[in-house]
């Protein structure tokens, strides 16, 4: 039985929401991420940071959430990205369309 990804949200300031995801995000775990994104949306923050430093795998269900979030927020993806996640973005050609930083601080600082 695979452990679900754990999703933790916290707000760094009135303007940021940070959603940190640890583990593997597949179609089972995706709803939890989706809920977190929806809450961030409702809270009205301008910038949404997805902290993927501890995300070990992600598939198209996650990508869909990312693309949707991107439409509604200023979205940053904080790395460093696990090879599997990097590959997801690279193969689908979404890398150039995402702001990916090397770490969380960078994502918050900008």
């Amino acid at each position: 039985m695979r452990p679900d990804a754990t999703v933790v949200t916290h707000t760094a300031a009135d303007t940021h929401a940070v959603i940190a995801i640890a583990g593997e995000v597949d179609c089972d775990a995706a709803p939890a991420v989706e809920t977190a994104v929806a809450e961030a949306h409702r809270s009205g923050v301008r910038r949404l940071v997805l902290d993927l430093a501890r995300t070990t795998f992600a598939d198209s269900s996650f990508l869909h959430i990312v693309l949707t979030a991107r439409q509604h927020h200023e979205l940053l993806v904080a790395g460093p990205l696990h090879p599997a996640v990097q590959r997801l973005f690279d193969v689908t050609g979404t890398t150039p369309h995402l702001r990916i930083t090397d770490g969380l601080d960078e994502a918050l600082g900008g």
Partner: protein
Amino acid sequence: MKTRKVPGRPLPDVTLEASPHPVVVLDEAGRVRSSNTAATLVFPALETGAPLADGVPAWLAEAHARGEGTAHGAVGDRTFRASRSAPAPGGAAWWFTDTTEQSAAEEALRRERGRTAFLVEASNQLLSSLNARRCMDTTAQLAAGHLADAAVVLGPSGRRRIHVTRAVRGGPATRELLAVDPAEVPGLADALAGFPAVPSRWIDASTVPGWLVPDGFGPVGSLMITSLPGNGAPPGALVLLRREGAGPFSEGEEGFARVFAARAGAAICAAQLYAEQSAVADLLTEDLLPPVLERIDGIELAGGYRPSRDDHRIGGDFYDLYPAGVPGGETMVVLGDVCGKGLEAAVLTGRIRTTLQALRLVEPDHERLLELLNGALLSSRHTRYATLVLASVRRTGEVLRLRLTSGGHPAPLIVRADGGVETADTSGSLIGALPEVQATTYSTELRPGETCLLFSDGITEARGGPFGRDMFGEERLSEALSHCAGMPAEAVVEHVRMLASDWLGTGRHDDMALLAITAPRRPRPGPAGGQGHGRSTA
């Protein structure tokens, strides 16, 4: 009055007389010594001094003669239970209890239980099928088995014809579509419209038309009609038939038949609703099922599709084939993966396939084609997207010329004649969610026996293996392919499917799609092939 029980002392007759229960006392020879008034009321023929058998029904006399201690039977229209005691100095006394009401109650209970059991059984059988025809057959058979000698289920009356399902007890159900008029049977038209039917006793069985009666049934003694109620319009009516001599339907029986009809009607309705829903789904998905791939224009193609178990027949993966518009032209195949599942994904898949089918005739360049497709799919309402691979193939001599372009999808693998496996050098953006897309096309040739394999990530991301959680991965896929040099396209697909399937074991999986393009190993001389080519086209 309290009586001390002293064995051997006969009770005084006055006690006997006061008892409301019939008592008959006999001497050793079986002759009546005395009886109380209650007994003479029940057995008027009893005579003191005469043998028991002269004044009581045979069942009691025989029980007495056999030396039994209890007996029961009817006296006139009442039933009694009798028990014997043996007062000293000898002889016997028979005591009677009127069990008529109790028997009737027991009989009613038994009947009720039987009916309940029948309804439970009927419900089980009716609910197990969502096939309307099967439900009607079951209804007719159940009714013929338990409620009457034969049963007829009439489907909703169409404009001119009506489905008639008949069953005789113990036999199968048969169905016909007949052009008949329900008005020929009193009350039938009403029942079909959902109105209460006329009571059975009002229907003259001799006027029943022949089409209602099963072949060889014989004359109808009585019949009963009830509606099969449903949601809104009733799905039909039920007619029960009894042969002559079987007795009419009682009110209780009619009531019970209506209870049964209610269940049957509900089941038939559910089945019809299901049929409608799935007919719609079928219509939508028929077009969306992956096409059966065969040989076309000297190109071997084979596909394998295994939808995720969790859901519907249609999932997010798809592949399609667009034959060359002109002889010697390019055949295009596409394999793709739409995010999401179910009808939602299916609708997007449909749009992609029809758009590609139309656009590719006017735009041969893959990158431009994907740009056009992207534009067609972009929506402000959602970010649903697809990843896909386009492959344009043309045969030149014994070689296949391929142009491969990935739109955000894993690049195809190519296995060469020497068993070496390479990854096609193509990449691109996913389609339908980004404002701009780009892609690079990889051109290559397949010599005889070489295969290009398109696949979805359901294959490479399949989890399983001996340790249960490892992904199948591209490395394993490449290794599998390296053994497939020279194999026909179907064998390549089969081999990969087998390995992926074994890898998964019984684990859950995403949709898995494969498409192999192979240059035939022994190219045929041409369309003049003649006998032995079955369905394949040259």
